[in-house]
């Protein structure tokens, strides 16, 4: 594409510029001094193709402050000859329009669709060349070509491949280096693993040391325990021995004293004061003999006072209980007699009352038969029979009255005549009233007529009814029959009533008209008869009991041969009994006293015998002690007595010891089990052993402390488990680091491969073309450009025409050659990038000012060739260069 027209309304310093029309197809030369707007124009071309960067009016460096907007348009001829017009404005928002034939396309701020194959960045870097861009070939310039401009194809997100590879390499080296030189992670981890393994060995050793120390500690503890126990035992033993020594002395003394006794058994059997005892016993014998004599005298006296009891008295005494019983019952017999008499009196009174009541009822004296009849009379039956009689009689009276009524009845019923009169009078009055046409009279007449007629008819009907009743004869016959039957029943009822009163001389009229008075009289007599019977029965019972009691008493008295069997005999017998009992009581007291006296006498005798025996015993033992001589026996006794006193003193001392039996036991144990002989030397030796034990114990305690400290120190160190876990973790880290490093190495290699492939694919074309350009620009001096990968990176090699060996391009090359080489590569790259697309214009800003004449001419040759396909813009402030360009390319400068 070529820019053929430019119309600037406002862009940087250019405001309302005259339109630039008919711009040359191949070479466009802008000439102007510094700050005249050459760079502004390059940016304008770029903005025309790609839009505004930045797209903000306030931030855009070429927004003129006078008009505060950017506004320009341009016309382009595409490689196919078609022309297009582009208008771009930066107001509040960027605007853009593409006119292509009749089509208007809204671009907004987008690039032209014909420049999409080249990014803004690449366009800015490659298609705009300044003098400084050709100063260096390698380093930044070449890297840009290789990486940013070529390999990344303009994507601003993708990083410089070289940087990435460098970074990967550095990171991989920080993890692992094959050479092993320097510090890296794997080395560090291996060091840590090695160190941990060493530590593990040390820890195992420590564990062993701990175990050994613990075992020794256990032995020490056991020894300490053993020695402590031994020491305690010895301490206890010496303490015990010291405590028991006085006891041992006492016991020894006790034993010696005990052994000094003469005939100890006999001495022990003797009283403590045998001589006094002997005198005392003799005195006692005399006293006892006197007591015994007194007792015998008293016994005789009491024996004489005891009375004799006769057989009769014994018999009375034998019957003591019966006598007392009969005496007690004597009052009851009298009471029974009084009751009998009282009953008899009551019976007489009742008899008299019956007789009086009987006479009052019957008007004659009553005898027993009559009384028996009255007693047998049943009042209830009497009442029933009397009621039957009265009822039958009442029925007969009623029937008789009915019969008489029916027989004598005559009906005389007359219909009142005023009914007939009223009927006739009413008819007349009504007829008169009707005739007179007097309604009231007529009405009155009708009323009277109806009354009379109605009354007549009613009376007539009543009369007929009455006559009909009178004519019933069957009713009379029935009454007659009933009367006859009732008469028979009455006779029977009367007979039944009379039969009940049979034996009781009461008149019939009284019986048939019996009233309450008669009945109460009968009832009273019947009650008295009943009471009489009851009293008589009771009297009989009482008399029976009384007779039985009296008979019992008589029989008892007879057994004691008492003939007079009244109560007085009984009382006399009672007195006799009391006398006998009193006598016996006195005898019993005397006998009791006698027995007590005899017992006392016996006891005194017994005691006398005992005293005599004791006396004999003392004398006998003293004799034995003195070998037959009592006096000598007394002497020996006194000697033994002194020994006993001594023994008592020792025992008293022993008594002061608490738990003496326990102490003795301990003493025996010490002697028998421990072989202790209670000597001072033995005690001293024991204390010496104790001191030695104490020293040994202190040594053991010190060693224990030492071992414990050693164990604590060992335990405070890192454990095997900690080390093993750390090892596991570090080994895991090691594995991860290996993986990471290997991944980095693989990625590095893959990226290198990708880059190589990319280069292989793209560089040959570029380099071939560049070689061609380089050949032209050097006027055939150099024929080829190569690229070689060396340890130091990628190197550019050039080959002179006719020379086989290529030369590595270095800083030692002449500046001019380097400029030529770099320009060739740049131009070749442009061709490569535009291949198959629109060829974009290229801008050279003071690019050739340092070139010598020959090189400039050669360069112009190259540019001429390039300009066949691509429009070239020159910007310069140098007149000589402008003239040379004008002359060489037959163009005219546009002065700014």
């Amino acid at each position, binding site marked *: 594409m070529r820019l053929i027209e430019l119309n600037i309304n406002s862009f940087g310093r250019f405001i309302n510029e005259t339109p630039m029309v008919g711009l040359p197809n191949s070479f466009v030369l802008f000439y102007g001094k510094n700050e005249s707007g050459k760079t502004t124009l390059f940016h304008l071309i770029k903005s025309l193709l790609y839009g505004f960067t930045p797209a903000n009016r306030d931030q855009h460096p070429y927004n003129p402050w006078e008009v505060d907007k950017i506004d320009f348009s341009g016309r382009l001829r595409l490689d196919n000859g078609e022309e297009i017009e582009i208008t771009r404005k930066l107001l509040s928002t960027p605007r853009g329009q593409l006119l292509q034939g009749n089509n208007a396309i809204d671009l907004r701020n987008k690039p032209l669709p014909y420049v999409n194959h080249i990014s803004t960045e690449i366009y800015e870097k490659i298609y705009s060349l300044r003098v400084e861009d050709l100063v260096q070939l390698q380093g930044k310039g070449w890297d840009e070509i290789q990486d940013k401009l070529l390999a990344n194809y303009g994507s601003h*997100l993708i990083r410089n491949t070289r940087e990435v590879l460098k970074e990967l390499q550095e990171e991989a080296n920080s993890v692992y280096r094959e050479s092993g030189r320097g510090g890296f992670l794997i080395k560090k981890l291996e060091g840590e693993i090695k160190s941990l393994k060493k530590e593990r060995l040390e820890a195992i050793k420590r564990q062993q040391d701990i175990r050994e120390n613990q075992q020794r500690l256990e032995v020490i503890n056991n020894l300490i325990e053993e020695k402590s126990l031994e020491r305690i035992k010895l301490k206890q033993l010496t303490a015990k021995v010291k405590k028991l020594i006085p006891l041992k002395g006492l016991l020894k003394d006790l034993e010696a004293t005990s052994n000094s006794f003469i005939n100890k058994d006999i001495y022990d059997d003797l009283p403590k004061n045998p001589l006094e005892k002997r005198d005392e016993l003799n005195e006692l014998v005399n006293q006892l003999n006197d007591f015994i004599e007194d007792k015998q005298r008293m016994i005789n006296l009491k024996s004489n006072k005891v009375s004799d009891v006769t057989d009769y008295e014994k018999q009375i005494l034998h019957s003591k209980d019966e006598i007392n019983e009969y005496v007690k019952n004597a009052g009851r017999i009298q009471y029974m007699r009084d009751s009998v008499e009282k009953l008899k009196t009551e019976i007489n009174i009742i008899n008299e009352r019956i007789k009086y009541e009987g006479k009052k009822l019957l008007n004659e004296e009553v005898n027993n038969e009559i009384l028996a009849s009255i007693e047998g009379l049943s009042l209830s039956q009497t009442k029933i029979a009397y009621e039957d009689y009265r009822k039958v009689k009442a029925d007969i009276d009623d029937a008789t009255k009915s019969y008489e009524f029916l027989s004598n009845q005559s009906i005389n019923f007359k219909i009142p005549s005023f009914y007939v009169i009223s009927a006739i009078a009413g008819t007349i009055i009504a007829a008169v009233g009707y005739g007179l046409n007097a309604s009231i009279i007529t009405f009155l007449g009708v009323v009277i007529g109806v009354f009379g007629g109605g009354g007549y008819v009613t009376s007539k009907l009543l009369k007929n009814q009455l006559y009909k009743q009178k004519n019933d004869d069957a009713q009379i016959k029935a009454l007659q029959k009933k009367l006859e039957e009732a008469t028979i029943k009455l006779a029977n009822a009367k007979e039944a009533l009379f039969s009940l009163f049979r034996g009781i001389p009461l008149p019939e009229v009284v019986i048939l008209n019996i009233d309450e008075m008669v009945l109460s009289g009968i009832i009273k007599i019947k009650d008295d008869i009943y009471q009489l019977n009851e009293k008589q029965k009771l009297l009989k019972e009482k008399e029976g009991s009384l007779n039985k009691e009296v008979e019992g008493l008589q029989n008892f008295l007879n057994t004691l041969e008492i003939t007079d069997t009244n109560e007085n005999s009984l009382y006399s017998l009672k007195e006799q009994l009391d006398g006998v009992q009193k006598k016996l009581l006195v005898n019993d007291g005397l006998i009791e006293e006698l027995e007590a006296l005899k017992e006392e006498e016996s006891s005194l005798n017994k005691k006398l015998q005992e005293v005599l025996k004791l006396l004999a015993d003392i004398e006998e033992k003293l004799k034995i002690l003195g070998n037959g001589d009592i006096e000598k026996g007394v002497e020996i006794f006194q000697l033994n007595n002194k020994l006993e006193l001594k023994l008592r003193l020792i025992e008293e001392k022993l008594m002061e010891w608490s738990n003496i039996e326990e102490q003795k036991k301990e003493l025996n144990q010490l002697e028998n089990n421990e072989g202790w002989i209670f000597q001072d030397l033995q005690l001293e030796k024991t204390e010496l052993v104790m001191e030695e034990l104490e020293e040994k114990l202190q040594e053991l305690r010190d060693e224990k402390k030492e071992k414990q400290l050693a164990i604590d120190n060992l335990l405070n160190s890192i454990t095997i488990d900690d080390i093993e876990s750390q090892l596991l973790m570090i080994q895991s880290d090691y594995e991860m680091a290996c993986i990471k490093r290997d*991944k980095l190495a693989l990625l590095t290699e893959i990226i290198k491969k990708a880059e190589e492939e*990319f280069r292989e694919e793209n560089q040959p074309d570029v380099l071939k073309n560049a070689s061609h350009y380089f050949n032209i620009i050097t006027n055939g001096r150099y024929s080829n450009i190569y690229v070689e990968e060396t340890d130091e990176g990628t190197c550019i090699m050039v080959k002179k025409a006719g020379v086989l060996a290529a030369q590595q391009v270095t800083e030692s090359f002449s500046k001019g050659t380097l400029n030529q080489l770099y320009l060739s590569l740049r131009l070749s790259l442009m061709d490569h990038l535009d291949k198959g697309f629109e060829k974009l214009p290229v801008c050279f800003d003071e690019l050739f000012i340092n070139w010598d004449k020959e090189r400039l001419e050669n360069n112009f040759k190259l540019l001429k060739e390039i300009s066949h396909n691509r429009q070239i813009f020159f910007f310069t402030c140098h007149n000589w260069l402008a003239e040379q360009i004008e002359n060489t390319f037959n163009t005219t400068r546009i002065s700014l």
Partner: protein
Amino acid sequence: MFKFIHIADVHLDTHFYSRDPELRNKLRDSLREAFNRVIDTCIDEKVQGLLIAGDLFDNDKLSFQTEVFLINAFTRLKENNIKVYYATGNHDPGDKNYRANLINWPDNVHLFNDDSVQELEVKHNHQIVAKIVSVGHKSKKEARNLIKDLPAKNTEIPVVGLAHAMVTTASGVDGHDSYLPCTAEDLISKHYNYWALGHIHQAQQVANESIYYCGNLQGRNPKETGEKGGYIVTIDDYGNVEVKFRRFSNIQWNTLEISEMESIKNYQELKDYIIVKIEAFLNSKEFDANQLILRLQLEGRCFLKKSMEIDEDIKQLEEDIKLHLNLLSLEIKANNLLPLVNSRECLEGNHVLSRTVDLILNIKDNQELIDKLLEIKLCNKKLDGKNARLKYILELVEGLEEEALNRMVGEEK
């Protein structure tokens, strides 16, 4: 019928991966509790045998406590008429230097502790119910394929093979050294009813045959995740095998990957997001949170990547979440987080990055690149042979495109 429990890799007295001594103690206790649970289950399930396929101990040292613990446990089994069949492994070989070999085991314990092949009859009620064929590790570096020496089954009676061996085709073999190596075919060719294997710490069935690794009894580090236990195996009189996995350990290690954190802009949002994810994880597996040692692997692009590179911030997050969910332990790994960039935009176009990603994604088809990568002097020195190196390289390259993107893309301006 022969009923038994198959366990392996108990690693008594082993060391655990943790900086926290308290947690290590809990894990140590948990391992013993798990072993006691095995013994209880043997008794409750009325099995006839307990088969231990090696590595009962972790190393040549054995604490007195563990010795007493084991003898008590096996004596309990003896009291219940249960036999113990114990084949030694590379961690507890039959070498006399290993104190475990000097223990006076109760007479119900039978050891296969050398390289001689032994066949034992299992009797129940005076009848032979099964045969156990086994070979042990004599030394700690038994590299021979001793399985080949074992006889093929030639009886109707069920035969159970017991060994601490590495089946080279099993999953998870990479984390284990190649001791007593064999192939699945070696095992299948014996026609045993059941193979009780040990060595690989991940429970699994091998080659879809009756060949089982029961895994270890207690996870020891973040790699040994999930439920840990053993198999209750019943072989009926017709040779039919029923295998049931039973979890024995309470404490579990687990790793949860959390991603899609691009829109999270502050700490509270991040914490809430992670808590929700963990809660969903806990609910899905019915974990007992206070028995869980959880490692969170944060993945993907994250706005807060920079903060997540600060140890103190990570510790704060760990503590807050651990407290909130009452977890036994929580470790957050944020090293894989990527900066927030538009990867799609970056990968468009023809440039070194897009080409790099292309190479990574198609590495398997690029022999030239593979050869080049094989020439790299790797840091991992454990790789033995070209195949191991290639496998390792391919594993590392997988997902490396994100790293490339991370490295080659600059910060958004």
